């Protein structure tokens, strides 16, 4: 059966375009505007038709729209820009090329999608999280300090002391969780500040490792820093890097059985610092590896070893790495050995972190909140 296409009369098309709340600008092959709907006219302050697109480009100097329009037409694909503000509005702009079957490119359509309201909602969500984080931590500190006072000043039975220590530990964990949530909220809203400062990465890593020695000793593990560099100068965000290294080394310690080994190495590769954290731990199941950096995901064997993990650590670490221009990846298992029973015994994971020696600064409202994960 032949398909028939009913062509809408022009006045109907114009009415539809006029009633759209998103701005629509239609341009011809010479990149001249042939029709802008009222929403577009009101957003841009430009007339309905008869001007070159360059007038429109000038409204968004940061976007390099001329190249984007060229690319959309050349590659015949829709191009979307990042969020951009104009007057009191926020927009996402998409450029759709119009390709005629016989005549080739006949121009295209620019859509100004008004995301102001979404942006406001997002902002109030972020503000709420910040406020809640601050307000929540005051009574939480009250709980912790009072429990500490109780533990110190009162005569208690051994089990009474244990209960109080559990209260203190839980309050500390909640405090850390709140800071993690705050960092997530800042990262996801895109308004986190990245403030690079000069650091010696060798000294920085050494100090971090010595902070984690107690934890590894408690587990009867060897935590070793393998390093051949005297110094490695970098300019990066201290709190973000501290979090990444701390989270990954801690995981290595947490998920390595007693008597095992965690090795931390650092090298310079061109203009990047390259960290390696190798453990003899439980490894990451193959089928779960793709999810390991997802928010709230916990590997099944990890959840069996440590029941109180949040599933936020690696997610934030990978986001934090992105913030300073770096990346994290891993290999697991390190070793596959034949066991005496004839099966395979797999062990260990190695995490790799690569960060540029000079991170780009990013303007924002607040920076990465320093997080010192708590020990029980």
């Amino acid at each position, binding site marked *: 059966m032949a398909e028939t296409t009913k062509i809408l009369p022009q006045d109907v098309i114009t009415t539809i375009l006029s009633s759209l709340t998103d701005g629509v600008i239609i341009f011809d092959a010479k990149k001249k505007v042939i029709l802008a709907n009222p929403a577009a006219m009101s957003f841009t302050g430009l007339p309905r038709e008869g001007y070159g697109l360059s007038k429109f480009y000038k409204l968004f100097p940061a976007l390099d729209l001329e190249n984007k329009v060229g690319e959309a037409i050349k590659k015949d694909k829709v191009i979307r820009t990042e969020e951009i503000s104009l007057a009191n509005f926020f927009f996402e702009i998409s450029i759709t090329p119009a390709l005629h079957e016989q005549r080739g490119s006949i121009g295209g359509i620019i859509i100004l999608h008004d995301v102001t309201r979404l942006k406001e909602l997002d902002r109030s969500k972020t503000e709420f999280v910040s406020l809640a984080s601050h307000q929540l931590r005051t009574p939480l*500190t009250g709980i912790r300090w009072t429990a*500490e006072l109780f533990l110190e000043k009162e005569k208690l039975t051994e089990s009474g002391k244990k209960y109080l220590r559990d209260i203190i530990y839980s309050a500390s964990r909640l405090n850390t969780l709140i800071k993690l949530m705050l960092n997530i909220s800042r990262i996801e809203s895109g308004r986190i500040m990245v*403030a690079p400062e000069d650091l010696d990465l060798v000294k920085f890593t050494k100090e971090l490792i010595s902070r984690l020695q107690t934890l590894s000793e408690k587990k009867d593990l060897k935590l070793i820093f393998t390093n051949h560099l005297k110094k490695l100068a970098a300019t990066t965000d201290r709190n973000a890097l501290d979090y990444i290294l701390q989270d990954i080394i801690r995981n290595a310690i947490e998920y390595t059985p007693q008597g095992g080994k965690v090795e931390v190495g650092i090298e310079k590769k061109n203009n990047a610092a390259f960290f390696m954290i190798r453990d003899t731990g439980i490894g990451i199941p193959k089928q779960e590896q793709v999810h390991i950096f997802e928010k709230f995901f916990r590997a099944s064997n990890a959840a069996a070893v440590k029941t109180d993990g949040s599933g936020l650590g690696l997610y934030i670490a990978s986001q934090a790495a992105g913030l300073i221009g770096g990346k994290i990846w891993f290999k697991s298992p390190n070793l596959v050995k034949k066991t005496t029973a004839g099966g395979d015994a797999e062990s260990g994971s190695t995490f790799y972190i690569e960060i540029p020696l000079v991170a780009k600064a990013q303007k924002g409202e607040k920076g990465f909140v320093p997080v*010192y994960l708590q020990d029980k």
Partner: protein
Amino acid sequence: MEKIKIVIVEDDEVLAKVLYTELFDAGFDALQAFDGESGLEMVKSKHPDLVLLDLVLPKKHGFEVLEELKKFPGTKAIPVIVLTMLGEDDDIKKGLRLGADDYIVKSDHPVGEIIEKVQHFFAKESHPQAK
């Protein structure tokens, strides 16, 4: 020997009470103010040896209190330790820039550590070469 006098400016009653109890038990003469304005007045009138200053306070923000304390000739030499909650880098930097001697992120420390910091502060004060 006269006791070392410390003014605690903290609006949360529970935190203030814990700090007060611990400082008192450690042998300090602790005084309490629950908002920025009365904290400022108390420091001016009592001339303590140290101020523990919260930042988010009713009536006057801790930073304003700090600024004014450092402006008045009568109070500018009194050391101030800022007690923050979030420990944001920019808050800490601002506190130090305005003349605070130290900062403590309340929620990150057991109260015992805070008292130790205060004791350590005076140990350093009495042996300036250790500074």
